[in-house]
């Protein structure tokens, strides 16, 4: 595993929501003090349920939403709330993203080569012949045909559209690719095609992925390290293997027991959580999972969440029950 290419330091993103135009705005805590390290060449998984802040965290790293406090270091630059756009642009060169829904992330009025080469166009390359050639060099790598270059998006199925989106992410030689649920809008029978393609491209181009998904079995097989998020906070992070073998946080355990297996080996004990995630608006200073946690104690309900505890080599969790 290579050196760390992205490190977040207490990265926090808040949104202000106003009940009415006069009142003081409420604080919606989307991402709270996240510390992650992504190493070169690895696939880093980010799991959690909808609304847990995994997409917001990725968007903050990509610069789509402003950072409230904290910072992150990436490709030799440190980015925080006060970073100037010119420095942002330097960092952004190295990052690209593949969105969840290829039906809405591709411009229907562009031909395939225009879509794929758009990042280069934005970077200043205006020669159409060069743009087309660069796009042509990539289409076959993502499993499309050379003749597809002049077609429009509506002629393609979901899986093929996602391939176009992946080619667009690769064209500017970005090193870090943020994949935000890249398979969840696709048919089951093409999931594996897209995952295998991502794995092949990582080998070939030496890419690093930040892989967001709510599909735990996918995360288990594809990622090297992972982080489990709940209501904006990272509950547990570390080597994927270790977390699956020995989940430290009760939320991770519950998530894993909710995986529906096709041919379960044994009758596992299933933890079915009661209730739903609480609102992220003005959260109290406690563990955010406390209301649904089957093992919550008096300590969890009264004391602020402790800092991350080392569970094993490269395996951290934030939980009162583990802190001793």
């Amino acid at each position: 595993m290579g050196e760390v290419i992205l490190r977040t330091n207490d990265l926090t993103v808040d949104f202000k929501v106003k009940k009415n135009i006069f009142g003081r705005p409420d604080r919606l805590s989307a991402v709270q003090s996240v510390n992650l390290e992504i190493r070169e060449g690895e696939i880093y998984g980010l799991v959690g349920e909808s609304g847990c802040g995994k997409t917001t965290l990725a968007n903050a790293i990509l610069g789509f939403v402003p950072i409230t406090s904290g910072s992150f270091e990436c490709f030799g630059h440190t980015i925080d709330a006060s970073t100037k756009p010119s420095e942002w642009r330097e960092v952004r060169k190295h990052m690209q993203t593949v969105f969840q829904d290829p039906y809405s992330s591709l411009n229907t009025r562009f031909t395939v080569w225009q879509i794929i080469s758009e990042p280069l166009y934005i970077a200043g390359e205006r020669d159409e012949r060069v743009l087309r050639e660069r796009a042509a060099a990539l289409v076959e790598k993502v499993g499309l045909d050379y003749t597809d270059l002049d077609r429009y998006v509506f002629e393609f199925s979901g899986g093929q559209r996602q391939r176009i989106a992946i080619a667009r992410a690769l064209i500017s030689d970005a090193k870090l690719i943020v994949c935000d649920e890249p398979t969840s809008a696709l048919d089951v029978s093409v999931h594996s095609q897209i995952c295998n393609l991502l794995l092949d491209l990582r080998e070939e181009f030496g890419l690093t992925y930040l892989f967001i998904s709510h599909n735990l079995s996918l995360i288990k097989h594809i990622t090297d390290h992972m982080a489990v998020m709940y209501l904006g906070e990272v509950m547990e992070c570390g080597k994927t293997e270790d977390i699956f073998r020995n989940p430290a946080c009760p939320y991770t355990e519950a998530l894993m027991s909710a995986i529906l297996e096709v041919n379960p080996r044994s009758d596992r004990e299933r933890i079915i959580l009661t209730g739903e995630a609480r609102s992220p608006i003005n959260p109290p200073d406690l563990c955010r999972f406390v209301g649904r946690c089957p093992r919550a104690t008096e300590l969890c309900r009264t004391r602020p969440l402790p800092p991350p505890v080392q569970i094993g080599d490269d395996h951290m969790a934030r939980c009162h029950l583990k802190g001793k």
Partner: protein
Amino acid sequence: MNVLEIKNLKVLFRTGEHFVRAVEGVDITVGEGERVAIVGESGCGKSVTSLACMRLLNTPPAYIAADALRFTAKDGTVHDLMQKPENEMLALRAEEMAMIFQDPSTFLNPVMTIGEQLDEVFIYHMNMKPKQARARSIEMMKKVGIPDPAMRAQQYPHELSGGLKQRILIAMATSCSPRLLIADEPTTALDVTIQAQILGLIRERCEKERMSLLMITHDLGVVREMAERVYVMYCGKIVETGTVDEILSAPKHPYTKALIDTIPDMEEKVDRFVQIPHNVPHPMHKPEGCYFSNRCAYCTALCRKKQPPLFDRGDGRLVRCYYQTEELWEK
């Protein structure tokens, strides 16, 4: 005795000058108190089949034909769903057969409170007075595990989370204790931990009210969790049917086998995923022979030329494949 019996159901859609064959001759039966699943990818015709049973498709653009589409009511009368006038269907839909949908937020009226929408069922189908109806609504909400039902009854759909909305739909669908519940991807829009809750709730309601369940899903894990018998559909046809145990542990059709293989084993880490090549064929351009032939690893010249019939293996399993043996997999 069968609650629902579908024989040779065909559904066509008219798009401009062409007809798209969405469902091509499907036979499905659901027994009393039985839990049956239809599994398939988007566009395979599983939802259209269920909507045709409920007569919820607009005709035109849809054209429905069937040798039989029969539903046996609680009192034993057999209804021919193809011939029923719309006003009789309306009564049948809530009291005898009910449906829950994938995205609960699109099936609730945003300008009516939750309570008002639940009350309607009791007012229209059980001729209750509004006050009585509200009491029953709150009772139903308790049954589906909604905390603080009296307060929730006064709220509007946008104030509820997806999981709660799905619970409301389940309450609505089961409030007249129908004989058959059709659930069309009820948990696809929900989070995994909520999915576990909702599946448990549907099962519990079915057992308590002795309802039959027709579950429509693309997720084989949900099939394992919910159903006793399963129909696998591909491109508008049933490719394999049998009990869940048999099908998931020993599939006989290459498509079922491929679907199961693409799900990686949870115990061991894999480096690459098993993949099915190519894409689902466009409904206007289905292959000439077997519809799966262009993606099948075991395809022969015969498969490409002639559509295989559903072979009856005699043990209650039907398979639409010429070969249907495990020897094939080993080659």
